[in-house]
């Protein structure tokens, strides 16, 4: 279900009734976002399809550099310099009754996109310091966003900003309006970023490793906070993380990425307890165990992520895959196949009647 079959897919019509029932806020369809530079192009996102149901949390996991952040940035239509969306669609359906808007087809700097970005789709980034201005107070940054998108006057915007800071658990919010980012600790800074992202009460929050730099008690509080905001506003969350513990706690659905592609997607229980893709299985095994003796060495996935300039032929994972079949995996490019309710995998072992 997470993977969105093309209209050309015969299964689409068959599953149509069921798929249509899913109230999807975002459908990413065969998205490709590439970077163009001196050394050649980097296919950071290379044919990614998945969807985000309204009011649900979808977690994206995967190797460093697999394109998780760029997927999130593509949904915001704010790809870093040197890169752009080259093909695919990002169907955004703020109103379930109205036709979808294809974000990928909007001009990144145009008015329509700017009205959506920051207002309807908020971002909390991996590095909170980078998202906050060092020279403007938190209050001014919040008020700027609010006044721009919600067309509020100064006084009203200020009240709205204070209210939002209180909502995310900043103590003495009125006082803290005059503080600068560096005056907050890591956890508080991330709350400020959440406040900034939520200032306009968006429909989708893209959270890119928002708790990575936080300790567990603060993380637990932030995850609780996101959960309650989700319940309150019906917020959908796209949560990028490498912490499988966090995924297990908050995800409704999980998307596993490898070198710019989705290799497996499904609901959280399936991914954790019946993973199908060899990469997902290996990933789950490399988590340090909290129980039993800490082992001398962690299980690792041998080898390195392939170079973005020289993607291996066949399945990208084959040089590192323990189940790879010579003559098959190094030749053919796996397609995604549905192997269960909402469970999609992209591995040749599952192709052909499986």
């Amino acid at each position, binding site marked *: 279900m997470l993977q969105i079959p093309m209209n050309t897919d015969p299964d689409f019509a068959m599953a149509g009734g069921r798929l249509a029932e899913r109230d999807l806020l975002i459908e990413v369809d065969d998205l490709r976002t590439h970077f163009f530079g001196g050394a050649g192009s980097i296919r950071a996102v290379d044919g990614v399809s998945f969807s985000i149901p309204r009011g649900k949390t979808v977690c994206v*996991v995967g190797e460093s550099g697999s394109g998780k952040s760029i997927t999130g940035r593509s949904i915001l239509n704010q790809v870093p310099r040197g890169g752009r969306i080259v093909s695919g669609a990002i169907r955004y359906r703020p109103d379930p009754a109205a036709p979808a808007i294809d974000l990928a087809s909007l001009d990144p700097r145009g008015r329509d996109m700017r009205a959506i970005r920051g207002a309807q789709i908020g971002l909390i980034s991996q590095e909170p310091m980078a998202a906050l201005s060092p020279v403007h107070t938190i209050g001014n940054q919040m008020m700027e966003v609010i006044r721009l998108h919600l067309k509020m006057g100064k006084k009203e915007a200020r009240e709205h900003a204070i209210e939002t800071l209180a909502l995310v658990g900043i103590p003495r919010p009125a006082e803290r309006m005059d503080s600068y980012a560096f005056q907050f600790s890591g956890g508080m800074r991330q709350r400020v970023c959440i406040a900034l992202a939520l200032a306009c009460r968006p429909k989708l929050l893209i959270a890119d490793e928002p708790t*990575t730099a936080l*300790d567990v*008690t603060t993380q*637990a509080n932030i995850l609780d906070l996101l959960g309650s905001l989700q319940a309150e506003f019906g917020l959908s969350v796209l949560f990028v993380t490498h912490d499988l513990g966090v995924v*297990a706690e908050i995800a409704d659905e999980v998307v596993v990425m490898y070198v710019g592609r989705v290799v497996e997607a499904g609901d959280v229980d399936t991914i954790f*307890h019946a993973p199908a893709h060899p990469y997902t299985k290996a990933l789950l095994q490399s988590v*340090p165990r909290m129980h039993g003796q800490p082992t001398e060495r962690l299980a690792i996935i041998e080898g*390195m992520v392939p170079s973005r300039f020289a993607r291996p032929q066949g399945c990208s994972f084959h040089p590192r895959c323990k189940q790879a079949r010579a003559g098959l995996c190094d030749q053919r490019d796996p397609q995604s196949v549905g192997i269960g309710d909402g469970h999609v995998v992209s591995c040749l072992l599952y192709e052909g009647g499986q």
Partner: protein
Amino acid sequence: MAVSQTPRSPLLELKDLRMHFPIRKGAFRHVVGHVKAVDGVSLRVEDGETLGIVGESGCGKSTLARTVLRIYQPTSGEIRYRDRSGGTVDLAALSGPALDEIHRDLRMVFQDPQSSLNPRLPVIDIIGEVLSVNGIVKGRELEHRVADLMLSVGLRPEYMRRYPHAFSGGERQRIGIARALASNPRLVIADEAVSALDVSVQAQTINLLQDLQEQFGLTYLFVAHDLSVVRHISDNIAVMYVGRVVEKAPTELIFSRPLHPYTEALLSAVPIADPRLRRHGTRIRLAGEVADPAHPPPGCPFHPRCRYATELCRQELPVLRTITADGHAAACHHAESLSLNPFADRTVPEFN
């Protein structure tokens, strides 16, 4: 590395270390108070040991790390370091060239790779910086050293002429680790060094850090919030709360027999990679925020959030003291009488 059998001073010993930041206000920038980010920390770190440091956001872990490295001038206290000649120096009292020399021995991997890597330098210059000062290593040799370091942290040497922005967050963190290792340090302070890495690279990096430790007799101060990582890598763990160490013990004891209520809460907040367990939440939610280090509460700084607090706790500051003979220390008035939940109480069926 030859290990001497004679008892000797630890590699690093902090004695009542304090780092207070002045709070200034008004046109004349008068000092109106102090943020007591590190407030009387005493710790011993032995050769080849990994000391994990955990604690809530803002409790002073990074400040402690930066003070040890003398990025900050400590307010008071000592940072006793045993140098290569075997003599002990107080880093708190050093300055100028003597400090620069020490900075080759003590290296840091930072929390935030975005702001700690110079965006205008290619990776070769970032990693090789410490090697090329004074032109010690240059040209081909520098390239080879950098290539070697990149490989050892799992980066492709052919990327050495690229700039940091062209790498993902995890890749940038590995650049930071390679940079820290470049000068053959003795003590590496890793401030959330593996937090930004995804699981499989994290596993590789942890294994790498452990290999390097064995190979070069490295000592680690390992600041991290991920307790499963800290548990895996640390010999001992120090738990900090508002500028102080509130519990210190060999790793297994922290998990199997916590003696400080804050540690108990911390253990209960660890997310576990099993979605079935989320419905079995036995989590202790800490109410309120971490105490403000500019105005720590009187008595035990944890008392406003502690479910075991008594009148004594509101009055008197508990000091870190050894509670049991196996080297378990805690700063809690009631450490002997409380029976706190160990981590193992949340049992997990292993997935496969």
